[in-house]
């Protein structure tokens, strides 16, 4: 008969490995969200010459919507101002911000000249937050560091922040949007976002 001490040790070992395996699985799942999104970007770039801006927008739309938590991102970029908005204003802001996010990807990722992405490392920062460190590899230039922060939304991992060469997209947008909201109000911010979408589509 197995001594009780061995049974306890085996149980502890089982629990420990289960936790480690679960953590590894979680980082792998989160990493796949990022690599899936980057594959969609490369696909849009490779088809750059053949597609119009509108076609690239439609191509990237599901990839962005399924990999980013745009509702949460919108709430964070307007910070405390969010609470002052009506439900209709919140919906309009999320819609406009989401359109702008997809439009900016469609605008900037429009041609291919040998670029690729590589995942360097993944790390669980805290329960519900995973950090994926990647590089955009440019054939004739220094690699560009691109880091993703993913948070759990239900059972899925979603991107909520991207840091490019040390510049946080979320922090940048929050500084800008809060400044515009405080200085000029909601309607001006919305109008500015529309102008940007229009510029990207030209």
């Amino acid at each position, binding site marked *: 008969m197995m001594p009780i001490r061995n049974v306890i040790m085996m149980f502890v070992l089982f629990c420990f490995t289960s936790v480690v395996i679960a953590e590894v699985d979680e980082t792998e799942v989160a990493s796949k969200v990022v690599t899936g999104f980057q594959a969609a970007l490369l696909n849009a770039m490779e088809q750059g010459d053949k597609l119009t801006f*509108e076609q690239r*927008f439609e191509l990237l*739309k599901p990839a962005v*919507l399924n990999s980013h938590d*745009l*509702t*949460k991102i919108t*709430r*964070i970029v307007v*910070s405390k101002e*969010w*609470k002052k908005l009506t*439900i209709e204003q*919140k*919906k309009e802001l*999320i*819609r406009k911000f*989401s*359109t702008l996010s*997809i*439009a*900016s990807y469609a*605008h900037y990722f429009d041609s291919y000249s040998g670029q690729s992405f590589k995942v360097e490392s993944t*790390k669980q*920062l805290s329960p519900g*937050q995973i*950090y994926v*460190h990647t590089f955009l590899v440019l054939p004739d230039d*220094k690699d560009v*560091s691109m*880091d993703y*922060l993913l*948070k759990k939304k239900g059972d899925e991992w979603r991107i*909520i*922040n991207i*840091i490019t*060469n*040390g*510049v*946080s997209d*979320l*922090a*940048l947008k*929050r*500084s*800008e*949007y809060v*400044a*515009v909201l405080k200085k000029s109000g909601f309607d001006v*911010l919305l109008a*500015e*976002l529309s102008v*940007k*979408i229009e*510029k*990207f*589509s030209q």
Partner: protein
Amino acid sequence: MIIRLFLRFIAIAGIFLLVACASTGKTEMAEEVNPEDLHEGINRNIYGFNKGLDTYVSSPLVGVYQFILPSFLRTSVANFFANLKEPRTVVNDALQGKEQPAGEDFERFVINTLLGFGGLIDVASYAEIEYHEEDFSQTLAVWGVPQGEYLVVPVLGPTTYRGVPGLVVDAASSPVSYLIWPIQVLDLLNSRSNADQSLKFIDEAAVDPYVFMRASYLQWRDYQITEGKNTSEIILLDGLDDPFDDEDDLDLLDDLEIKL
């Protein structure tokens, strides 16, 4: 000497802007002071001045420069001036105690100067010797000098209290400052031409270009100073666990149609 004229111009522009800001002092006083940018009022004025100068002077000149010089010659010019900055980089590497980068940067300078026709061809990059960017402002940061407030300097653009002595020391230690004026003009055109894409990006993407410039400049400098080690900290923004959890179940995006 063109640098002397340039500095005189900056001083005059600075005085002009200070006077302009002083005349609107009452309005500034009435406005709420931004703790992240204590000099926002005057900074915004100088930013506006720099933007106008760029639109009406620098940008057209750079347009001519890019029209006259084919791409491969512009690359050679950029390589030449980047190579002239390498001794400064080596010195700052050493001052920061970075032995390996100091060796690599010295190697880059020797190889590019001897084998790359005085730096016109970046042979060292073909040999995969890594390029680093170091300046005296980064050295001051490594030595523990606090960043201080954000500033926008006439003509030169964004910096901080710590960046001002850095700019002076870097200008004084740059070999370009002691060359004939046409080379100094070429250096200015090359610098502005290299910044073309970034400035275009700000124009296209920024909702408030002044705030965009400030936030991105401060983060990017921090990234340079910490050699990228700040990334895993700044990715966790304050307020990331926002106080809106009551609405977590309400996904407002679900019933929204996203279209152009």
